[in-house]
């Protein structure tokens, strides 16, 4: 399409502009990008491997000279490298499990919302029942009994989080169904498939994006919680949660082993939450009068 002065400004573009006009959000984006880059480039940044032991320096504080930028733990493993590799696992779990919950949740919620009536009632009743489950306990049981398999973590966590997604999508779909522009499309003879494709999904997208951004940190948190209990990934692999668990034990003798993984974990969660919040505000068309 032509791009000229008569080109309109889509709501999404306006939202992105307002989002990027905030310095804080841009900073969050940059920090997050840095964390992702660092974890991706981990092998290039340090001579140490994830489980290699440097007997020269055991429990040494951070130092540039030794090459252990974040110090070493009580068996001489490099915390810098371990933090970055642990980040890979944490981020990977966060993304994959969120995708699992996204797919199940959108599918479930959208069907319930469009179908309505009895189907909707049955499907949402199931979600209600699932909501009452002490899921964390189930996840713990899963981990204990089926071994600390990383894929199991994806599925377990994703299976817990889809409930929220299903509820949100269903609510949106239900209200969207009665919006006048959908009625107009129906009056214009547009097929169900095209109504869903052109009218419902694009208008759902905002909510879904926001929700995804806010689910990723939740999942990372769950994974690190499991790792903290010793139920997450297994040696030699590690994750931020497992590192924090190790670090907490050495808190008094080698506080850096707690500090750096905790910092990376908190920083990442903070950035995701912050961006998610910003996205929600930017996509929410309600007036923001009185904003600085």
């Amino acid at each position, binding site marked *: 399409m032509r791009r000229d002065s008569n080109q309109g400004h889509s709501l999404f573009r306006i939202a992105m502009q307002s989002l990027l006009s905030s310095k804080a959000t841009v900073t969050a984006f940059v920090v997050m990008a840095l964390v992702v880059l660092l974890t991706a480039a981990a092998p290039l940044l340090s001579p140490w491997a994830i489980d290699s032991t440097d007997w020269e320096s055991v429990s040494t504080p951070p130092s540039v000279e030794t090459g252990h930028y974040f110090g070493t733990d009580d068996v001489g493993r490099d915390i810098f490298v371990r933090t970055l590799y642990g980040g890979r696992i944490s981020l990977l779990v966060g993304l994959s499990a969120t995708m699992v919950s996204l797919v199940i949740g959108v599918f479930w919620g959208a069907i319930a919302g469009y179908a309505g009536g009895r189907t909707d009632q049955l499907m949402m009743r199931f979600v209600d029942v699932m909501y009452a489950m002490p899921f964390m306990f189930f996840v713990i049981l899963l981990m204990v009994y089926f071994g600390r398999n990383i894929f199991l973590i994806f599925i377990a966590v994703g299976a817990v989080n889809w409930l929220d997604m299903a509820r949100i999508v269903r609510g949106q779909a239900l209200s969207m169904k009665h919006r006048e522009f959908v009625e107009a499309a129906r009056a214009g003879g547009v097929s169900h498939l095209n109504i869903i494709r052109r009218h419902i999904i694009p208008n759902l997208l905002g909510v879904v994006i926001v929700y995804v951004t806010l689910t990723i940190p939740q999942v990372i948190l769950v994974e690190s919680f499991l790792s*903290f209990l010793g139920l997450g990934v297994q040696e030699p692999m590690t994750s931020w949660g497992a590192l924090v668990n190790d670090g907490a034990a050495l808190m008094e003798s080698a506080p850096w082993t707690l500090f750096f993984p*905790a910092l990376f974990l908190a920083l990442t969660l903070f950035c995701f939450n912050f961006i998610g919040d910003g996205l929600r505000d930017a996509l929410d068309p309600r007036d923001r009068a009185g904003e600085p």
Partner: protein
Amino acid sequence: MLRFTAKRFLGAIPTLLVLMVLAFALIRVAPGGPFDSEKQLSAEIQERLNAAYHLDEPLWQQFFRYLGNLLKGDFGPSFAYADYTVSELIATGFPVSLKLGSLAMLLAVIAGIAIGTMAALKQNTRADYAVMTAAMTGISVPTFVVAPLLVLVFAVTLQWFPAGGLGNWQNLVLPVIALALPQIAYIARLTRGSMIEVLRSDYIRTARAQGLTQAEILLHHALKAAVLPVVSYLGPATAAIITGSVVVEQIFGVPGLGRFFVQGALNRDYTLVMGIVVFYGVLIICFNFFVDIAYRWLDPRVTL
């Protein structure tokens, strides 16, 4: 009201059944058993143990036996703590967890609503930004990071409070704070958001036009509506506090139900794990029932 109670009671039955079937299946389908230990027991002893605990019956039979006992209020004997029944273990652990959890919840609700309201009143000022950044940090820093830090600062360095254990109120300070902090942060954010929305609403404008003072408006007009999302969040908050207590009890060495659960899971203590899951399931269902009643009281438009 009566109808609502009956409806919820009936609705809870399938929920509990699903809960029990799921938990039972998860525990029993898993490899390993309660009597696998380092030293191999002889096949005969193994058999006798299995028979004594009815583990030799088909699974569905075991399930219905469990269900039948449960209806009589019997959670069965613990496998790992040989001399105790599960009921006894829950009776030892739960009061501790309840004290910890309810104190944390109380602190979270009061502090969260107060902080959120203040931030909403000072919306978009520096104070607001500072408080909200702190709250965001509170959500982003997991309990298992906060708890060791609290120990490091207040127990090891400053020596204000003991690092754990049980005893008098000082022992509870740090665990309660560690448990409450993320919830304070979450509730503060919820309250701020809804309070801002409420303060923008037409009926608050009416109240201002009527010359009511800020305090009157907040107390009589705004608060009820603004805490509605917090009330809805109480269910998930309870679940989060129960989960969090697993970590906190571990770190501070508090002998509560959370520790029993993790230990039980690791020991393959079927009945204990099952008992705790069912117990918490019932607890959460009851709690959600009271939350709904509170919601109805706060929002007269909701019909039960």
